Structure formats: structure tokens, C-alpha cells
């Protein structure tokens, strides 16, 4: 009985994880413009990887090897870094004036007064090494 329950639970979690990974990948390819496509991988990394990690945790715990929590570190690192990389990608896209659609209109979230220039670093004499 317990075994059947554990198998069902773990399989469900794996399926959920796989489904969201698929959704994320589809979003990455099929959404209409860059800023929308940026949302795709977030689903894969949070719900997708999270569910798979949870499945692994549950599986090992129910096997009788105890609760090994260091897999959660993977999720923590992902939650730390994924938003930052998305932020950087968005900033880079804005700076490089990546068009949003076939007409090239500016995205709504972008403030027209903000400078779009790639900052030019002043070329000065290097400090003595």
C-alpha cells in the first residue's frame, strides 16, 4: 500500500516536472517576441526543476535513506540566479534595441526618457600594475 502510494506520488511529481519543462521550452520557441519568450524558461527552472527535485527527495526518503536536504540547495541557487540572468537579458535587449514585433514598436514597459546608449567607458590610463 505504502509502496503504491510512494510510486504514484513520485511519478506524479516527475510528470508535473516534465510537463512544466515542456511548457517552458515551448514558450521559449513559440511566443511572439523576445520579452515574452523570456518568461518561458522561468517555468522550466522553477516548477519543472523543483518538482523533479521534490520527486527525487521523496523517492530517497521513502526508500528509507532518511531526509537528505542538500538537493534543496540546487533549487535555492536556481531561485537566486535565474531572476538575475533574466534581468540582465532584458536589460541587454533594451540597450540593443531588440524589436518587439514586425512593426518594431517599442515595448510598453520601456520608459522613453531612459537612455538607451551603450555606456562608453572612458579610456583612461591604466593604474600601475
Amino acid at each position: 500500500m505504502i509502496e503504491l502510494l510512494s510510486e504514484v506520488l513520485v511519478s506524479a511529481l516527475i510528470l508535473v516536472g516534465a510537463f512544466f519543462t515542456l511548457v517552458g521550452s515551448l514558450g521559449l520557441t513559440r511566443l511572439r517576441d523576445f520579452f515574452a519568450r523570456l518568461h518561458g524558461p522561468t517555468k522550466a527552472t522553477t516548477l519543472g526543476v523543483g518538482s523533479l527535485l521534490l520527486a527525487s527527495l521523496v523517492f530517497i526518503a521513502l526508500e528509507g535513506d532518511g531526509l537528505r536536504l542538500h538537493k534543496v540547495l540546487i533549487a535555492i541557487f536556481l531561485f537566486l540566479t535565474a531572476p538575475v540572468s533574466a534581468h540582465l537579458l532584458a536589460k541587454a535587449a533594451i540597450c540593443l534595441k531588440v524589436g518587439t514585433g514586425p512593426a518594431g514598436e517599442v515595448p510598453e514597459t520601456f520608459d522613453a526618457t531612459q537612455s538607451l546608449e551603450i555606456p562608453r567607458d572612458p579610456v583612461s590610463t591604466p593604474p600601475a600594475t
Partner: protein
Amino acid sequence: MTLLLVILIPLLGAMLPPLMMRWGRGASAGSAILVTLAALGAWGSMVPAALRGEGATFKLPWIPALGLNLSLTLDGLALLFSGLILGIGLLVVLYAKDYLYKSDPMGRFFAYLLLFMGAMLGVVLSANLLLTVVFWELTSITSFLLIGFWGHRADARRGARMALTITGLGGLCFLGGALLLGHLAGTFEIAELTSLRDSTLSHGWYVPALVLILLGAFTKSAQFPFQFWLPQAMAAPTPVSSYLHSATMVKAGVFLIARLHPALGGSEVWFYLVGGVGLATLLVGAFLANLAYDLKGLLAYSTVSHLGLIVALLGIGTQYAVVAAIFHILNHALFKASLFMSAGIVDHQAGTRDLRSLGGLWRLLPFTAPLALIAAAAMAGLPPLNGFLSKELFLEQTLELPFAAGPWWLVPALATLGALLSMGYAVRFGVNTFLGPQPKTFPKPPIEPPWGMRIPVALLVAGCVAIGLLPDLLGAPIVELAAAASSYLEVEGVHFALWHGFTPALLMSGIAIVGGVGLWYLQRWFVPVFDQSIPLPSGERLFRATIAGLVDLSRSAKRAFHPGKLQTAIAWMILSVVLLVGSALLVKLPRWTPSPADIDPSLLGGVALLLLAIGAALYFHRRRAVSLAILGAVGLLLSMGFVYLSAPDLALTQLSVEVSTIVLMLLALHLLPAQSVKERVGLHHLRDGVLALGAAVVVGTLTWLLLIDPPTSATSAYYLAQSKPGGGGTNVVNVILVDFRGFDTFGEVIVLGIAALGVYAMLFGMGLPTRWTRPETPDESAYPLMLGVVARVLLPLALVVGIYLFLRGHNEPGGGFVAGLVFSAAIILQYLASGIGWTQHKMNIPFHPLIALGIFVAGLTGVIAIAFGQPFLRSWFEYYHVPILGEIELASAMAFDLGVTLTVVGGLLMVLVNLSKLPRSTSVRPLTLAEEED
């Protein structure tokens, strides 16, 4: 043991003067003097025993399989030469302290000088022929460094290159001759070679071995026809000339001839070859010295001539000839060193070395002039100085030759001619510089130099006079001992005296002296004649023409294989690999029996994905950013493959290396345009395709052979079985890396360090302007705050993960290399997040010391094993019980791993940070991801 110390003290002590420079030039010179005194002390402690005839010996097997042993001996010949090297070395150090100009790097100079001193001592103390070759080459290299010391002068660089080429080629010939001699005699120990003389002389290989060894000796001692490099080497600072090119290094060739005379001498070939070359050199050198305008050039040719005299005497080979040769070695060293030093004083104080602008210096240099004149008189062979005694002996020996050499009067007449020419140039040197009319102005107003430059000259000249007046007391004992060691005949009862009665030798000396003075009178007529109208065959011009021809040949060969286009060079490389490996494979290819393979479907899926990715990379290959991303995907697929094949260490390493390499390539791509140019023509496509296909077939076959037939199963079983008991860890891969094959890893880590330094040198040498932001708060739009904060938070976490991987590497997947990569990734993130200027300002990691420290630590763990009597890099592990943590294991392999980590961090960071300092390409267009392929 003391013998070994005498050589090691200068070699290791060479590190001191550059380090002591931070306390000033005086401290640096003082440390050089101390090192020389220490070596002198060690040497002196062995002198009494050596003088009694019981010289110390030392033997340590080094590579017994090759016959190379660290054998040292202090017999008479070695005693004489080592005394000269150390004594004159001390005086040269004193002289150099005051000679070197303020702008010269003194620490480096003394380091080179001490290195040379140690190498030269190695040559003379060695009792094994192969060991002599090793130290011989070392003297060539250190003398190259010393001659080219004033590297900003073109003539110094030319002279150093010429000296190194000629002495290096000679060293190669010496090695060949030594190998021949060792093989025909069965041993490389010089003492044993001596006792085997009779069988050596009658062997078929005797003449080739002799010729090769003599080539080495003649090139080193600037004998005819190789004499032209010595005057070119006069571009060195004068202390170098007086030490190397008069007293020690050029004497190495003569030393070799004397050392091997008991083993190879006494045959007709020896007599004609050695004697003939010596006599020819005597005449050629003395003649050219008469034509020289440069003071040091004159002395250089004079040195060549006197060395020819010594070589001729060794060629004659009778007992007294050998005695005369050894005596002249001693005397020549004394007066020539002092002459060079006084020439240096003239150059240093008056600013010129040209005889045409000098004269009458005895008024302005009242202390130096008489000393120089006495030394010149010794060089000419005037009584009652030491030069007279040895020249008399020489002339006497030419009257009794062991083999026929033309009419009885020919050789003595030539010898007298040589002595006559010597007198001529000695008078030229002394009179034209110090006596006679004074020119209107000198480049610098000459005054007496500091005492440090005058005392060595005085001491050496006093030696000349002392030996001249009391030769039996001062010279005879050591000469007798040295001659006994240089001859296969008995040498006893050596006596020198100033007056032997009216002998033919005295007559010849008289003719030479009078004729020489006459020659000096005639110089003002014939020297300009030679200068302007008679072109003498110049070995130097021939040498330069040969070298130029060789360089042209290499250039055209290089142009065929490497015309500056990367594609051609790579094509040649791949072609050679395909041909070489392919031909080997064809020989070894086993029969292929197709068997039903059980292939895992997921593996097939992975391979299909890989092929897809590579196909995509090919399709997009001209869009650089896209192909880089695809290559990253290929790397990830490889990591997954490793995980599938149950190799977690490799997967970890592949992942982290992938990240670092992608960052590296991105930085490099920054400098290139976004798209590569379409440049290949159809035929080239075909050629490239065929080459790529061939390489794929070869590599694929190789891999397949490796996988289907594991001949190393015995090895892998051994590693798996011995990993825990022998290496102390359960992670076999890591144990193999740091324990079983630790020496390989040591080498690879050193190569990594060298590669990083090479990248640094290349970037540094490119001279590109570096883009440098001022170290202030990073600008928000370029360096987003979010990234900066998260990077800061991640740094300690990543470092902890790295330490965790490092500590558990021995027993579980991890290890030093992966830990190093994790550390580097974390630190690179800081640079990415906040810019180079700001980060460098806050966190100044010294990359070069880090690499050096890593290699040092890794080497230290190996050396400590030796200290415990174990072979290099033998590891040790022990289990300890610690209260709270439980049982922990300490292994020396962890220290080795630490060295690996440090080097990896230092190397990787150095490459990445220095690449990122370069500016963006000025013609860059932003990469637009929405562009279509044309």
C-alpha cells in the same frame, strides 16, 4: 661532500644578489663577495690534503643506466683551475662592484656571474665525462647571459649570439665525441679512461671521437679557425671579459685538452692536430693583435694567441711540454686578467678604448699605469716576470719534438715569430696607451678610479712579479701536481729558474724581444695598409653570411607551411595526423567481426542529439555568437554522456571547463566582427572536406578500437583494488590523478601555469591599449545592481561549495581541479558584475605569485617525500579521531591537490582577466539576434 658544496654554493648563492638589491647595491655586492668567500673557504679546507697528493673525491650515482655519475675529484689540475676560478672570481667581484654604472642592474649581474662561477667549477671538478658536458653547456649559457648583459647595445647582442652559437655547436660536437669515447672505452669516468689509454688509441673510433672532442675544445677556446667570436664578445662589460674571456671560460677548452691528454694523447694524430692548430692560432692571434685599434680587441686576440701557445705545448705532449703548458695557464690567467682590468679602468675613466685617441696616460693614472705596464711586460715575456719563464720554456720545448714536423728549425722559427709578434703588440698596448704624447682631449677627464678597481689589478700584478722572482717556491709545487694529472707519463722534479745559462731558448727570446720592438716601430706603416687595402679573410663575415643564409632557408620553408593563414597551418597539422596515425592504424587494425550489439536506446537518442547539434553548428558557422552557443550545447551533451557512463568527476570537470571556456571565447569574440567573411573558394571546400573526413575516420577508428578492446583491464583492476589501501581514497579517478599518476599531474599543472603565462606575455606584448574604468562606484546602466548584490551573496556560498568539493575529492566525486574551477567561476562573476577597475581595486589577487605558489606547494609535497627517504611524490595518509567530527583522514595528496587548485585558479583568472582588459573592437555592430542568414 665538501666538493659538492664548492659547486653548489655559487650556484645556489646566485639567488642572493638580486634579492639583496632591495637593501641597495652595497648589500648586493656584499652578498656576492660573501658567497665567493664561502666557496673559497670550502675549497681551502681541502687544499692541504690535495697538495699532499690525496685530493678529495666524491661520487653519487645519478643516472647509472646512462653512465652518468655525479663524480667529483680535486686532483692537481682541478686544484689549479678551481683556485684560479675562485681567486680571480673574488677579485672580479670586487672590481665589478665599482665598475658597474649606476644604471646597470647589479643584482642580476652578480647572479649571472655566480651562476657562471658554479658552472665553471663544475667543469673543472668533474670526474665524469658526461657531467663535464652538462656543466660545459651551462657555462655556454651563462656566458651568453653575461656577454649580452648590456642588452640595449646591438653589438653586445650580436656578440652574445655569435658566442652562444659557436660554443653551443662545439658543445654538441663535444657531446658526440664524449659519447663515442664512452662507448668505445665502456665507461665515462675520466680516471678509468686514463688507464684504458692504450686500447683507446688503437680503436677504430679513436680519430672521430678525438676530432669531435677537440672541436668542442677549440670552439670554446677560440682556436683557429674559430677565433673570431672572442673579439666580438668584447662588447661585454670589462669584469666579464677579464673573468670569462681571459682567465676562466676560454680556458675550459684548454682544460679539457689537458684533462683528456692522459686518456687520448700521445698519438701522431694528437700531435699534428693539436700542435698544428695551436701553433696556427698562436701566429694568427698575435698577427691580428698587432692590427687592432680597440684595447680590448687587442687583448682578445692576444688571449687567443696565448691559448694557442698552451694548446701547442699540449700537442707536443712531452713531460716538460705539459709542465710548460700548465705553468703558462697559471701565468696567463694572472697577467691577462690584470691587463683586462686595467683596460677597463682606462675605458671607464677616459671614456674610450681606441688606441688612436689615447696616449700619455701615465701622468693622469699614476697608480694604474705602472701596474699595466708591468703586466704588459709579462705578456710580452720580459724577464724577470712570470711570462718570461713560461715563454722560455715554450721556446725550449719546440726544439725537441716527439714526431717529425718538417726541418728541425721550422717549428722553433715559427715559435720565435710568434713571440716576436707578441712583443710587438705588447709594446703597442703599453706604449700607445700610457706613454707617448697625450691627445688634446679625452671623452672624460681621466682620474684614478676607486680603490675597489685598483686593488685587484695590484694583487694580480704582484702575483706576476712574485712568481717571476720566486718560481720554484711559489709556482713549482702546484704546477708539478697539475702536470702529473695531465700527463700519462711520470712528472717529477719540476724546477724553474730565471737563468739557465746561454741556451738556444734564450737566444730565441732575445731575437723575439728585439724584433718585437722593431715591429712596433714599423706598425705605423703597415697597420694602415692592412686596414685599408688588404682584406683579410674574416671568419666573422663568413659566419654572419652562413647564419643569414640559414635564416633565409628557414623563412622560405616556413612560408610554405605557414603563410600567415591559420587555415593552412591547421590543414598541414591535420594532414600529418591523418597520415601518421592512419598508417599506424592500418597496420594494427584487427579483424572486425560484427556482433549483435546491445545498444541502449537512450544512448542512441543522445548521439542523435549530438549529431543534430553539430550539424547546426556547421550550418551557422559564420555567425560566431550562434555557433558559440551551439558549441556550449555540445559540451553540455558531453557532460550528460559522462553522467550516463557513470563518470561524475569527468562530468563535473566538463561542466565547469565548459563555462570557463565559453566565457573565454566570448571575451575573444568581443574583439572580432560579428560575422566571419566568406572567403573560401570551391576547391578549398573540397580539400577541407576531404581532410575533415579523413581526420574523422582516423579519430573515430581510434576511439572505437579503444572501446571494443580494453587491453588495460588489468591496469584498471589494479587501480580499483589498490585505491583504498594504497592511495587512501575511494574515488579512483582522483586517486589516480594525485597519487598513482601524480607525476603526470605535476607536469600538467606546470604546463597550465606556463600556458597562462604565455597568454599573459602575448597580450602584454601585443601592446593594445587597455580599457580601464576608474575605480569608483560601478555605473548602474553598465553594471546592474541586482547582479552585483547577488554576485556578492553568491561568493561565500560558492567558495564553501568549492571547499566542500576539494575536501571530499579523495573519496567522492570532486577534487582539486574542480574546486579550482568553482573558485575561479565565483571570482570571475565578481569581475563580470562590477567591472575590472572596481573589482581589481577591492580585491587585488596577485596571479603570478598564485601560480608559482601552486606549483611550489605541489612540488614541496613531492620533495618532502624524498626527505623521508621515499621516492618523489610518494603519498602518505593517516586516520585521526577528532572529538566532535569523528574520524577524519589526513592525506598528503590533499596538499598536492591544493597546489593543483591554486595553479588552476591563478592560471584561469590571469587569462580571463587579462583578456577582458582589452578594448572592444572599434568596428563592432551590436549583435542582432533577429538577423537572417544570407
